[in-house]
């Protein structure tokens, strides 16, 4: 009987295609928008990825990594003086403008790291030599900068190419692999001292101190010591877990800079609302199109279902037929929608924009929602069929 149910479904090609299209669009909207949102949120903490230090020390009111609230230069020494700290280095991080050879300007994320230790340097070099960063006017750019900082569209910036930051020469000595910044601009690394030369002078220029704990001291212990002994705020820099975000939702304070950064954007910007509305629209499209079309499909087949019931098909078999039909279009629609999302992801990752990051739970969550929609649609049909009197088939 289930095979017949599927034949009945596929035979009504207009409704079948409408159902599949509705669920595919719903899947695409929900999965793609969630992934773009997660991608955007991962971009907010890209500086933490690109400056791989285990502990970040910032001014007490700082809540997220892109917030600039400078420290005193002497704060580096204060952090170094904490007994549980192995090493500590100054860090500059800020948005600057680059003037290209063509005269046009581009926005960059400038990172200034300690010239002696090179702590905070990119973890993976794609070309050039990290050590040359100590040479005069040297910078390292990321792979996005190779395209973005070129004078003409389609050209690429190579080693030893030159551009200007605040009228001062910057020569490319290396190319690094990096995560794209929240502003979409490329990362440019230089030494801390040179970064201060590039940037218009201010009374306080130190954005953060990056450091690591001594061997045998845990990160949590180290940040507690730094906090206690310096009065500065210290965060650990580690991958955020789902539980940590749940803790933030419950109002528990976090010591993870990644969680704190992402949560700040969720709380203080309209980004989640904007993406959330699109996801809800996807859900509504799915519910409206699927339930309405499936119910109409059931109504159109009511006389045939009545005939089946009169011929001895049990209510449970009819229900199973409807569930099979609903879940079949659900799975097919979900598959097509996810395929569309994969296509979008492929293009996004290739072009490095828009941001795209799909956590593992997203496809499962979307599948659960789609099957929920299908269950709702099937239940509407089941409700109608359960009230169907088989005697109706004798009334012409």
């Amino acid at each position, binding site marked *: 009987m289930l095979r017949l149910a599927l034949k009945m479904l596929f035979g009504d090609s207009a409704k079948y295609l409408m159902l599949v299209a509705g669920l595919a669009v719903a899947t695409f909207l929900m999965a793609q928008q969630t992934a773009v949102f997660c991608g955007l949120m991962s971009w907010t903490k890209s500086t933490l990825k690109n400056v791989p230090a285990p502990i970040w020390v910032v001014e007490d009111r700082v809540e997220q990594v892109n917030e600039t609230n400078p420290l005193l230069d002497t704060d580096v020494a204060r952090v170094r003086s904490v007994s549980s700290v192995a090493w500590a280095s100054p860090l500059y991080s800020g948005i600057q403008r680059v003037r290209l050879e063509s005269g046009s300007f581009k926005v960059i994320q400038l990172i200034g790291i300690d010239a002696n230790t090179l702590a905070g340097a990119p973890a993976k070099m794609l070309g050039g030599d990290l050590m040359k960063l100590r040479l005069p006017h040297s910078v390292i750019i990321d792979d996005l900068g190779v395209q973005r900082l070129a004078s003409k569209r389609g050209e690429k910036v190579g080693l030893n190419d030159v551009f200007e930051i605040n009228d001062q020469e910057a020569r490319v000595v290396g190319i690094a692999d990096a995560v794209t910044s929240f502003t979409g601009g490329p990362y440019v690394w230089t030494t801390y001292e040179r970064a201060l030369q590039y940037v218009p002078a201010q009374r306080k220029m130190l954005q953060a101190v990056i450091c690591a704990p001594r061997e045998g001291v845990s990160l949590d212990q180290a940040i507690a010591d730094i906090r206690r002994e310096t009065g500065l705020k210290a965060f650990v820099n580690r991958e955020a877990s789902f539980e940590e975000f749940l803790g933030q939702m419950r109002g528990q304070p976090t010591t993870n800079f990644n969680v704190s950064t992402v949560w700040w954007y969720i709380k203080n910007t309209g980004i989640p609302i904007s993406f959330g509305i699109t996801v809800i629209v996807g859900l509504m499209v799915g519910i409206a199109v699927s339930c309405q079309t499936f119910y109409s499909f059931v109504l159109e087949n009511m006389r045939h279902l009545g005939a089946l019931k009169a011929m001895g*098909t049990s209510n449970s078999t009819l229900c199973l037929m409807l569930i099979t039909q609903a879940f079949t279009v659900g799975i097919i629609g979900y598959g097509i929608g996810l395929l569309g999302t994969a296509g979008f992801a492929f293009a996004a990752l290739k072009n490095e924009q828009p941001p795209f990051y799909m956590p593992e739970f997203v496809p499962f969550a979307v599948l659960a929602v789609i099957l929920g929609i299908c269950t709702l649609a099937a239940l509407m049909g089941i409700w109608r069929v359960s009230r169907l009197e088989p005697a109706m088939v*004798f009334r012409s």
Partner: protein
Amino acid sequence: MSTPDDLKIAAKLRGIQKSFGDGESRIQVLKGIDLDVRSGDITMLVGPSGCGKTTLISIIAGTLAADEGQLTVFGQDLRRLSPAGTTRFRAKNIGFIFQAFHLIPTLTCVENVSVPLLIQGISHSKAEKKAKEVLEKVGLAERFHHRPSQLSGGQQQRVAIARALVHEPRLIICDEPTAALDAHNGHIVMELFEHVARGQDRAVLIVTHDNRIFHHANRIASMDDGRVIEVHDVDAAHPPPDHLSVHERL
């Protein structure tokens, strides 16, 4: 003790009553029906529109419950069965031919005819094999994989008949089986029913207004205003009313 006549009775109705609605809008459709439907016979149920024929066959088929009276189908009191039991009984013992055929448009002839066997849990391959055999018997061997929309009205009715016969039910209930057919196709269909009833000893109950087919009947039960007002046994000595409906004659 059962008499030979009792053994021939497929459906026995005594004092069947049925009403619809409540209060002032309550309408009594059947007002005490007594009727025997015999195996090996074609029994026709005739009467004007609204006299209760459709309600009566719905009750005999077990798709509608009577308010009062006794109904046994092949000795089984349907009122003693649960809804699921009635459904199973119907699936096994009763074949249906509907006025509007009710063939599923997206299925082929073979698939449509297989339905009653699939309902009984018979495997797809066995059901299709049996369906093809029955379709061959009704002269549709060339139309196995056609859909209903590709068939004429007469051919669709023959598919519906094949569907009603495929699981070898002992009682076949037909609602206006020739209403949508021309005289030639109507004659073919009735010959099929004669073969089924007399050749295979099954009971065929036909609701009809079509006096062209009265001569195929063994018995004609005339209904009016919720009652069976006459049962006319058709034989050589008592031919069916010619060219006039029984109701008009009465």
